[in-house]
């Protein structure tokens, strides 16, 4: 973790202990997450890799506070977010989710979107927030798109604007739920390098859900391979590839070894999920 920048205090450690999540639509009693435990270090990029509908998103939503947990606990920097006596975490700007299809406000320009958090929190005045937003967008190479509405820019740019919007809230953890899934392969690799660059500058902890093994290996410090539903870590891989990483690394021997090994681990789970006819994104 030598590349984690020293600009920030070491924060953003997430610990999940025995998390249980049950969906019970009309008594169906679906166990989505079953006694799932793992920890994410401050400044780490932790990739959650698992078959469709395995329950990864449930876990992410529990961390964000959108869903409650039916058992176990989640800690942020040793402070309990949810657990016994507190089933749902408070929703707050210290943990921000970037969604699969994006959640930029269509009626606000890119700049207004980025400045949204500090403005509604009253943390910064509007001009201050706009100045910060402008700065952060320029740092992320998004200069010139400030006044565009989300509908006017490409989906790749939208995703980057959304990550910058999240960062302006100074989150301890960034929760990314397959943010690049809808993008084409070329755009995606541009996104990956931009994300690594952002991470190197901010050192924010990132929990990143994906279906894509190469994406997981390319970005992550660690890859947590999840079991088919109910979801829990099957095996955790340390990605010992050097950083900074660029696209050339995918051709390296170590990269291919890691992807092959992870694919082998994931395959059995994907088959299980497939056999159940799991719909993509369903009950995930």
């Amino acid at each position, binding site marked *: 973790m030598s590349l984690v920048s020293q600009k920030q205090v070491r924060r953003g450690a997430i610990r999940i202990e025995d998390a249980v999540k049950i969906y019970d639509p009309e008594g169906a009693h679906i166990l989505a997450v079953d006694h799932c435990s793992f920890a994410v270090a401050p400044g780490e990029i932790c990739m959650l890799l698992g078959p469709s509908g395995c329950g990864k998103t449930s876990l992410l939503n529990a961390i*964000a*506070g*959108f869903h409650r947990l039916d058992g176990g606990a989640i800690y942020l920097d040793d402070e309990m977010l949810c657990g016994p006596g507190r089933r749902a975490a408070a*929703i*707050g*700007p210290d*943990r*921000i*989710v970037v*969604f699969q*299809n994006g*959640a930029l*406000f*269509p*009626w*606000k320009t890119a700049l207004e979107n980025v400045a*949204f*958090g500090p403005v*509604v*929190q009253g943390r910064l005045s509007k001009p201050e927030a706009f100045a910060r937003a402008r700065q952060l967008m320029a740092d992320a190479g998004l200069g010139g798109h400030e006044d*565009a*509405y*989300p*509908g*006017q820019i490409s989906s790749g740019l939208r995703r980057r604007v959304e990550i910058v*919007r999240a960062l302006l*809230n100074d989150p301890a953890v960034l929760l990314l739920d397959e943010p690049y899934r809808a993008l084409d392969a070329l755009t995606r690799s541009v996104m990956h390098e931009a994300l690594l660059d952002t991470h190197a500058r901010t050192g924010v902890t990132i929990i990143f859900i994906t279906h894509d093994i190469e994406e997981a290996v390319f970005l992550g410090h660690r890859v947590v391979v999840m079991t088919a539903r109910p979801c829990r870590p099957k095996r955790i891989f340390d990605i010992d590839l050097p950083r900074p990483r660029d696209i050339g690394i995918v051709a390296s021997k170590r990269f291919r070894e890691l992807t092959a090994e992870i694919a082998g681990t994931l395959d059995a789970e994907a088959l299980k999920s497939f056999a159940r006819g799991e719909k993509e994104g369903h009950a995930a």
Partner: protein
Amino acid sequence: MTQQAAIITPDSGRLLRFRTAALPRLLFNRSSRRAIVSILAAIALWQLGATSREWLGWPVPVLGHVPAPDAVLVAWYHVLGDAGYWQSWYQSFLRVAMGFAAATAIGVPFGLTLAMSPTCRGIVLPVFELLRPIPPLAWVPASILFWPTQELSIDFVIFLGAFYTIVLNVLGGAETIDIRLVQAARSMGASRINIFRRIILPGVLPSIGAGMEVAIGITWEVVVAAEMISGGGSGGASGAGGGLGFFIWNSYVGGSYPDIVVGMISIGIAGYGSSALVRLLQTRLTPWLEAR
């Protein structure tokens, strides 16, 4: 298809704020040329049908029984100097404006309240759904009974016509708001009021606009029929100031058939004009939709 759609949507919005340089381009581009030719052809056909009355020994259906365009033009020219005709415009416009404004002013907050509160929805929606299938015109006699003036009863019927549409659109619009936008706003620390003001309200604005556009069309349908049924409200039988609907009816009763068509076309123009105004308002309210 796309060519024609282009006339209706972006151009008609721009019509109202064109720059002078844009006018020749607007008049002479291919879709405008086609539109002009098709309208002229339709008028020529109408003229031919109305004046010949018989084609190859067969009576001309429909067209054979209506006044010819030239007769309509002459009648229109005469009526242009008649204060009663303009009074009719004013009357109908006023009624539409009153009913529509009331429907918007009450319908939008009402719809938003229903959308935000499941409790309200549970209590109010059944009654709303029970009343909704009753056509506004069925309310005319009852409305005359319970409103003190005939004018108010016509306004009320117009209000009903627009109200249901606006409320349903607000409700539908609120349902389509992506829950993730609300979640994103909450994670960034937005309060309930902020979420309402910055997410829900702009989120339903396109639906409010769409509802208003449909509603303004309905109000013109309703006002004409209401004026015919109620005998023109305060205008009485004189024909002056009874509104455009009564103008048409009165022309029919008085046997001045070209005036019927003058009234019909006037209502068409009035309806088109007010729709254009609503659309203009809509593009002002939702600039992000224009900018795609």
